[in-house]
Structures are given as structure tokens and as C-alpha cells.
């Protein structure tokens, strides 16, 4: 176990606040009356609903199927009746609703038929489809569909498998408690990952502030004779970030703009490994997870929570207190404030952190940047946050991208150390989403340009085709006229032919006009008839006058 560890640059060490919640045993949160299950709980396309209002569903039944490759299914967390398939509040900072399936639970918690999978017998591709249909997604926070990550791709195998038990964010202890209590199943899950990825080296990284978890994992590895190295890494935020964990354990860096699999490394969270073991060895889809409820509550602790349970139920369970100023999903460094507490627990919910004015005093007002570069010293991505801030604030997104804006992992270290208290990460998020929007707008504009140009081309072509058709017709007419015996005898000139054509057309028009002559001129009283005649005479005169210069024009 004496492997050389490496260091990542930057990072900070905020107060840990882990002891508050990791001492109490895990408690199962009671079944709520109503579960709200969002269809978009993972990165990629949201699941497509499979049920409609009034359907009875069983626990573990798939209620939304994966849509496309990068997607995952969602399942009913308990049995009951579907009461709505509509827009509901979801845990997102915007407070915007999203499509959810609501289930009125019947209290029977009746399981759908489910069987363990023999993962060795299944073809890897089939197994991955099963895992996608069991709704597996990364539980470390990014909720990337696990089935996609378990595909070694063209390389056929991924030599190094890293299991991330870093849990570097303050306050959160769900992975710590999971490792303490369910180490065996975590390693069973790791065995399945190793099978799918063909890994030869398994490194489990755990921060040194979790001695019990380390001991439990080491004991489990010894008991199962499992060839995984349990590695104790120094606790430093964001040491649990995948890129940082890779660097600490292997000394290698994920190339900018690439994936860790490009250097033969795949990283999974311990929670994902546990969920994978439940899925394969018990056939259970991902319908529950451990959630730390901590901060300004009476009994900070971890709960085993069904996906779809409203957050306020958990806060009540942990003992809500007066003086709550807000609730975060996630930790204080990267967590997101919740717009309201009716939002459900989702696959990404690792922690519900209740804020109070004492624990989280309001942030001081920001002062201008003094370019002290403390942020650059703290940045684990080794960026120049002060420059990115300058560009983002000025709206110079092109320069921000040149300075590697998209290598920012939004860990918050820069904001944490900033002596001017500038919410730097906010500026990066803003710049990133502006760039994405602009790229989308640009694509839309390109599409519009292309379609407009094609339309012009089509109109041009139609015009040309019409002109050609007309020309062909005229040619035919001319030939006809030319064939007819002519008094002059000589070959008709081009002008004569044209005149003849015009005359023919005029005759046609006249005939048509006669056909469509106004019907209200019949049976008129004599007075009116006379008036009309007078007018017609005047018109004829005008017509005559109008024709004269025209004719003189024609024969100069």
C-alpha cells in the first residue's frame, strides 16, 4: 500500500464540518404520500415517459425509458397510482419546472418482479443496456449515465479504474457513511466495473479525514481478497474532483478537452459502485440513495431516501429549526440553492444543507479585483481566474475561451480565497452559458442562412424553368405562324413574328374579356345605357390617344 502519491496544484482547506452528520447511523426515510420523479435526472436526453395518469405502478417499475445513447431510465420508487405527468418544480437553481411523473403511493411498497443479472454470462453490450434501463447514473454529482462510462470503447479495455471516495466538499458525509457501512457491496460493484472495463489496476482514493471509511474498505478488500489498493489521500478541496483524484493517485493529467478514458483511466464514485452492485446482484433499479441532511437542523445525519421524496420531509425528519435562511443541494462550495423545499430528491442529491445566518453569514459586498492572484494560486485547473473574470465581466468571451474558460471545473476555490469577495465562479458560469447560447444562436442563424439561400436558389430555378417553358411555347407558336401562308411571301422578320404573337394574345384576351363581361350591364334603363355609352366613347378616345405615340414608337 505504499504507493507514491502525487499532488495537485492549488486547492483550499475550508472547515470540514463532517463530524456533525457522520456519527449517527443511517436511517431509512419513511415512504412519502407522494413521489415526484423528474424525467431529467441525468446528463443527456431526458427519459421518455412510459406511463399515463391513472396507471398503477409497482416499486422499481420503469416509468420513463432512456432516450438515446446518453440517457438513463427512471423508475417508480414505490408502488402507487400515477397522479400526474406534468411540469413540476425540480431541484434546479433557476426555479423552473420540468417534466415529472407524480405517484400517489399506496403504502404497500410492492416490488415489480426483478431478478439478479448474471453479469458474466451477458454480453457486455447487453449488460450495459440493462444498466441503462436500471437507471444507473453517477452519484458523485455529475449524474452522467453509467452505462456510457462503462463502455471502454474502441480501446477494448481501460487499464486503470479509480473509485472515488474523496468526498472533499465540507459538510457532506454520505459517501463516508456508505463506505463505513456497505464496503462489501461497493467492492462487488467495483468487480462488475472491472469486468466491463477490463481494468488491471484498481485504486480506491479516500481522503485521510475518513479513517473509519478507510478501515472498513481495507477490511472488506482483505475479506473479499479483492485486488484493490485503498489509497489514503490528503484531505484538500477539491481532491475529490475526478481530475484531481486522477492526478493524486497516478500523477497523470487528463488532457484539456479530452476524457480520462483517453489516457486509460475511468473514475466512478463509491455510491455508483454500490448502486451497480444492487442493480446487478439484486436487479434493483436506482430508486434510492444516501442523502446527508445537515447544517442548521437538530439531528444532522444520513438517510436512505427514495428518489422523488420531497426535501422538506427530510428536513422535518432531521429536525427543522427556526432561523433557516436557505437550503442548498450539495455542499457549500459547489451546491445550489433550492428555490423551494417541495422539490424532490433526485439521483444527484448527495446532501441537503440547511443554512442559517450563523453557519453561513451573508457574503460581504464585492470590491474590485486587485489582481493579487490568490485565485490563480488556489485554482486546481491552473487557470488565471483574474483574467477570466476580467474577460467575462467585459463580455469578451472569445478571450475568455482563449484563456481556457472551459477547463474551469467551477470548484469555487477562487471565490473562496478572493480577498475582494468577488463571486468569480458566477462570472465563469455566466460566460460559459453565454458562449453556449451564442453557439446555439449561431447554428440557428447558419441554418436560416442556408435555408434562405436555398430558397433563393429554388426561386431562381423556378423562374428559369418557367422562362424556358414560355420560350419553348413561343418558339412553337412562331414556327406555326411561319408555316402559315403569308401575303408578303417573304420570310417574316423577328419583329413581325412578335407582332403576330402579340396580336394573337390580344385576340385571346379580348375573347376572354367578352366572356367575362360584366353581367350587370344587361337590361339597363335607357338613361343609364346612354351614360355608359358616353363613357365608353370617351374611353375609346383616350385609348386612341394613348395608342398613337405607341405606334409612332414602333416604326421610327
Amino acid at each position: 500500500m505504499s504507493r507514491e502519491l502525487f499532488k495537485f496544484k492549488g486547492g483550499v482547506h475550508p472547515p470540514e464540518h463532517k463530524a456533525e452528520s457522520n456519527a449517527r447511523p443511517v436511517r431509512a426515510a419513511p415512504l412519502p404520500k407522494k413521489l415526484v420523479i423528474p424525467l431529467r435526472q441525468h446528463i443527456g436526453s431526458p427519459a421518455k415517459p412510459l406511463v399515463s395518469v391513472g396507471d398503477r405502478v409497482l416499486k422499481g417499475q420503469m416509468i420513463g425509458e432512456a432516450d438515446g445513447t446518453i440517457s438513463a431510465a427512471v423508475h417508480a420508487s414505490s408502488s402507487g397510482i400515477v397522479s400526474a405527468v406534468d411540469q413540476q418544480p425540480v431541484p434546479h437553481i433557476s426555479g423552473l419546472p420540468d417534466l415529472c411523473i407524480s405517484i400517489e403511493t399506496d403504502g404497500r411498497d410492492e416490488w415489480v418482479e426483478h431478478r439478479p443479472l448474471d453479469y458474466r454470462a451477458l454480453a457486455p453490450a447487453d449488460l450495459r443496456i440493462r444498466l441503462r434501463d436500471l437507471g444507473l447514473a453517477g452519484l458523485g454529482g455529475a449524474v452522467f449515465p453509467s452505462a456510457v462510462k462503462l463502455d471502454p470503447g474502441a480501446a477494448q479495455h481501460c487499464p486503470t479504474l479509480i473509485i472515488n471516495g474523496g468526498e472533499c466538499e465540507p459538510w457532506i458525509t454520505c459517501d463516508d457513511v456508505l463506505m463505513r457501512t456497505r464496503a462489501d457491496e461497493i467492492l462487488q460493484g467495483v468487480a462488475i466495473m472491472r469486468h466491463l472495463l477490463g481494468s488491471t489496476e484498481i485504486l480506491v482514493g479516500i481522503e485521510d479525514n475518513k479513517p473509519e471509511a478507510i478501515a472498513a474498505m481495507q477490511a472488506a478488500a482483505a475479506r473479499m481478497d479483492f485486488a484493490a489498493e485503498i489509497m489514503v489521500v490528503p484531505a484538500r478541496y477539491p481532491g475529490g474532483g475526478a481530475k484531481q483524484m486522477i492526478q493524486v493517485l497516478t500523477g497523470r493529467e487528463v488532457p484539456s478537452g479530452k476524457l480520462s478514458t483517453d489516457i486509460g483511466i475511468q473514475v466512478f464514485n463509491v455510491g455508483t459502485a454500490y448502486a451497480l452492485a444492487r442493480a446487478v446482484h439484486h436487479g434493483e433499479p436506482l430508486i434510492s440513495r444516501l442523502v446527508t441532511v445537515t447544517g442548521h437542523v437538530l439531528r444532522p445525519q444520513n438517510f436512505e431516501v427514495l428518489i422523488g421524496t420531497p426535501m422538506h420531509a427530510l428536513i422535518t425528519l432531521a429536525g427543522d429549526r427556526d432561523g433557516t435562511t436557505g437550503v442548498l443541494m450539495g455542499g457549500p462550495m459547489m451546491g445550489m440553492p433550492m428555490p423551494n423545499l417541495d422539490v424532490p430528491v433526485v439521483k444527484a442529491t448527495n446532501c441537503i444543507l440547511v443554512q442559517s445566518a450563523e453557519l453561513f453569514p451573508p457574503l460581504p459586498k464585492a470590491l474590485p479585483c486587485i489582481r493579487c492572484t490568490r485565485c490563480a494560486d488556489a485554482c486546481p485547473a491552473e487557470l488565471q481566474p483574474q483574467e477570466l473574470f476580467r474577460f467575462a465581466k467585459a463580455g469578451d468571451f472569445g478571450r475568455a475561451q482563449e484563456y481556457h474558460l472551459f477547463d474551469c471545473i467551477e470548484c469555487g476555490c477562487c471565490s473562496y480565497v478572493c480577498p475582494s469577495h468577488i463571486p468569480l465562479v458566477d462570472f465563469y458560469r455566466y460566460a460559459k452559458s453565454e458562449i453556449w447560447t451564442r453557439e446555439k444562436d449561431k447554428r440557428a442563424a447558419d441554418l436560416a442562412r442556408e435555408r434562405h439561400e436555398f430558397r433563393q436558389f429554388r426561386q431562381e430555378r423556378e423562374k428559369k424553368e418557367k422562362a424556358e417553358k414560355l420560350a419553348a411555347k413561343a418558339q412553337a407558336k412562331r414556327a406555326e405562324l411561319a408555316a402559315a401562308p403569308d401575303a408578303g411571301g417573304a420570310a417574316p422578320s423577328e419583329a413581325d413574328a412578335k407582332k403576330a404573337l402579340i396580336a394573337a394574345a390580344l385576340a385571346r384576351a379580348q375573347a376572354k374579356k367578352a366572356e367575362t363581361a360584366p353581367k350587370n350591364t344587361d337590361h339597363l334603363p335607357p338613361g343609364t345605357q346612354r351614360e355608359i355609352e358616353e363613357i365608353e366613347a370617351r374611353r375609346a378616345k383616350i385609348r386612341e390617344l394613348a395608342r398613337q405615340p405607341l405606334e409612332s414608337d414602333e416604326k421610327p
Partner: protein
Amino acid sequence: MLAAILVMAGIAVAIGLALGWSAIRFKVEGNPLAEKIDAILPQTQCGQCGFLGCRPYAEAIAKGEADINLCPPGGEEGVKKLADLLGVEPKPLDETHGAPKPKSVAFIDEQTCIGCTLCIQACPVDAISGAAKQMHTIIAAECTGCELCLPPCPVDCITMVPIAEDLPHWKWKHPVVMLKQVSGDSSA
């Protein structure tokens, strides 16, 4: 004296040759400026600028025949980008050509539509599907929101629906935190 004149003349000839050579060597086909301007324009093809679409407007700007502030869908930001590209001072949008509106797409009330195809002929990006005496419908993903289909419709069955913000389209706002905002100071 003579030497100085010769030197100056020599330099002039050398520079002239270099310029002439580079004019041939680095000749650019087409009108790259109009291309660049066209790339900034929003491609709504709405004609609010008074030209028959974005490309003619771009060409007019490139020739110096049109001002840069005639495009309402591009908004102030578009004017600013054009000003940056052309190295001129940005100016406020010319409101006589319309005011910027939130991005919308056209929507055909299919109950009212009589299938006259007039809107199809008006759509600059072929984003309306349908045929004579058949109900028409807007391909929302391709609609630029130009509103050119509104006037020809004889039964007024087309309305503009603003694109509502939903989760996939939500974006982070510019943080409002600097002390400057407290006082409304104008120096940036």
C-alpha cells in the same frame, strides 16, 4: 543631395513593388467584408432593415451604402459587433426600423387556417410546411421569427409566440454584485 533623392526613390520603388506583389499574392476572392458582416447579422431575413434579407443588407453595409443600426433582431449587441468589425463608433439602434423584441416563433392556428399557401410563399427560410387547401404548420426549429408570414395571411391565423425559458434553455445571468451598482456610477 542626389544620393538622398535616389535613396528615397529607391525606397519608394521597393515599397511599391512589395505592395504590388502582395496585392497579387494575397488577393482575396469575393467580398470578405460582406461575408463577415453577414456572419454577424442574425439571419432572420425579416427585411426590417429595408433590404431583401440579411445578405443584401450586409453587402450594402460593406459598400458603405447602409448604416449599421438598422437591424432590430440583432439588437444593440449586433450593432456593437458590427461597429467592432468595421472600426466605427457604435450607435443606438434606429427605432424607425422597429424595436428589438423577445425571440419568438410563428404559430398557425390550425383551426382557422384555410390553406391558401400565401404564408408559405412569404417565408424566407421555408419553415412552413403545407400545400394548397391543406392546413399549414410552422417548423418551429427553423422559424426565425421574422413575422413576414403575418401580413399575407387572409384569415389572420398566425400569431407570434415568444420562446418561453425552460430548463434546457435557461442560462446564467450576469452577476450583479459590484459596488458600482449601488451608486449608479457611469464609469465602467
